[in-house]
């Protein structure tokens, strides 16, 4: 058949009411998406079975950025592990630190000062905003709203400036220590943070004005990737994905860690659990985070920012030149590290993507015997198949964007 004849047959087939019956496209095509694809949010490879444009099966292949962080942690003393775990989920580094430091503190049965708890909450909620902003920018980009990326990254940059001011680094700050935080916030930080907090709710309004009535955005997200609440719970999904189905499950509320019981904040939930609900839940979470930071800043208690326990916490710099004892402690802590009594704990916190758990096994030495992170992206990725199978390949991109996986956390 010549090309023209083929084209004519094609036209004939597509004419409604034509006598030629439509042939079902039974042939499945297997294609690779990624690992280097801009819409996979990292180095994620998806082996997709397509029937025409419809996804019939899907298999995520991960491990491309596996760097053996958990193994490396076993070779370093506890205080040196903190920078390692930060680099797992590189958008929620404060949460990784908190999961690890909290687990060590639990093991040592160490109480941290109130001011440290508040400072940790402030930084974690700023981090949640930062993480959601990156998600918003990249996800909107994936479904075609390109300008969102620049608006979201503008606010993200303000947050990174704040991190730089209080911790000295923009990302991977190593700010949380076992016992508290390494330094108190500097002068002027509070003023800058309040400026940001005053501005942020109007910025969220602006993002919503750009997206909430954007016809293309609505069509690409509404009714896409709906998975029932029961199925998500079976698959172990937590975080905004689960809350989008109407399940008000948030570890900040139910487990009362750090200073969260002191603050009033809501848990935004969705109704049907499609991609649009996931988007709305995260947007509402940004507003709640702003509220939490405001309350934490208003109620920030005076006092030390780190526990006064020389066996585990570095002595203040100023004491090193005057106190022999402080110098000995400093030397011991830096060279050998502290020993943690044998035991095992599992501590879970609510990261921007769900339950972030740290399992820690101590054998009595100065190095952990096992560090395992239950990364929410890793577990949530199992739900992608349920979300995408039966939908179009374009919706697969939307589903992936609204799932918000961070490959650094998945692969560790």
């Amino acid at each position, binding site marked *: 058949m010549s090309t023209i004849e083929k084209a004519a047959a094609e036209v004939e087939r597509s004419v409604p009411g034509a006598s030629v019956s439509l042939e079902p496209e039974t042939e499945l095509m297997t294609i690779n998406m990624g690992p280097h694809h801009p819409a996979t949010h990292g180095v994620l490879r998806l082996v997709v079975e397509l029937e025409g444009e419809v996804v019939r099966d899907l298999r995520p292949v991960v491990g491309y950025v596996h760097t053996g962080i958990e193994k490396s942690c076993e070779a370093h003393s506890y205080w040196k592990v903190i920078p390692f775990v930060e680099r797992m989920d590189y958008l929620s580094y404060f949460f990784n630190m908190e999961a690890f430091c909290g687990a060590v503190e639990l093991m040592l049965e160490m109480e941290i000062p109130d001011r440290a708890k508040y400072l940790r909450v402030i930084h974690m909620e700023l981090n949640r905003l930062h993480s959601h902003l990156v998600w918003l920018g990249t996800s909107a980009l994936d479904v075609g709203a390109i300008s969102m990326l620049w608006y979201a990254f503008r606010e993200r940059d303000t947050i990174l400036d704040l991190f730089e001011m209080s911790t000295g680094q923009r990302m991977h700050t190593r700010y949380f220590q076992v016992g508290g935080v390494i330094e108190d916030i500097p002068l002027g930080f509070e003023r800058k943070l309040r400026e940001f907090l005053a501005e942020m709710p109007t910025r969220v309004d602006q993002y919503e004005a750009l997206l909430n009535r954007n016809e293309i955005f609505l069509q690409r997200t509404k009714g896409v990737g709906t998975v029932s609440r029961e199925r998500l719970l079976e698959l172990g999904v937590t975080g905004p994905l689960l809350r989008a189905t109407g399940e008000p499950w948030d570890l900040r509320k139910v*487990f009362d860690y750090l200073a969260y019981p002191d603050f009033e904040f809501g848990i935004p939930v969705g109704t049907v659990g499609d991609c649009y609900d996931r988007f709305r839940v995260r947007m509402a979470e940004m507003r709640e985070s702003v509220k939490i930071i405001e309350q934490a800043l208003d109620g920030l208690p005076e006092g030390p920012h780190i526990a006064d326990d020389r066996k585990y916490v570095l002595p203040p710099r100023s004491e090193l030149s005057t106190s022999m004892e402080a110098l000995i402690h400093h030397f011991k802590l830096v060279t050998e590290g502290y020993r943690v009594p044998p035991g095992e704990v599992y501590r879970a916190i609510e990261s921007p993507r769900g339950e972030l758990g740290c399992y820690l096994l101590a054998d009595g030495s100065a190095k952990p015997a096992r560090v395992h992170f239950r990364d929410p992206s890793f577990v949530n990725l199992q739900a992608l198949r349920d979300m995408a199978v039966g939908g179009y390949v374009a919706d697969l991109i939307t589903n992936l964007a609204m799932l918000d996986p961070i490959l650094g956390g998945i692969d560790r």
Partner: protein
Amino acid sequence: MPDAPGLELIRSEINDRHPGAVLDTSFGHGQAALIADPEQILAVLRWLREEPGQEYTFLSSLHAADYLPAEPRFGVHYELLNRNRVERVRVRAALPDPGGSVLPQIDSCVELFPSADFPEREVYDFFGIVFRNHPDLRRILMPEDYVGWPQRRDFPVGGEPVTFTHNEPGAPLT
């Protein structure tokens, strides 16, 4: 968390139904753990999931640890959660190492908890613990042709040769 007496109650109730299923309990840092016989792990997990009054229906995390030089060597941990009562309990399957090239085996709990799919593959990948009846037990994070179980305590850190085309004379230039 069930408290220490509550944990003993759970232990005796499981052992009434499945003799010898729970070997021991441990309670530390406010966290409760049942140490279970790996051969009966599914019975223990099913009881905790389905027994009225327990209903630990959510598997938060599944991971493993190598307790070398202790015996039994491996522990597979199931962090169970009852979301209504906000209670966690950890089940640790104490898995001995058969030694040599024989891999330790345990039943897969994917039937009970579909969320265990990736975590069980991860445990297999890093510890060489085989989960019987797992639907698709392959390495997940390490390369498929990798040899060895890197998270075991006797597996050394480092020493991984990195090959580049310029120091591999026979390698084709791509």
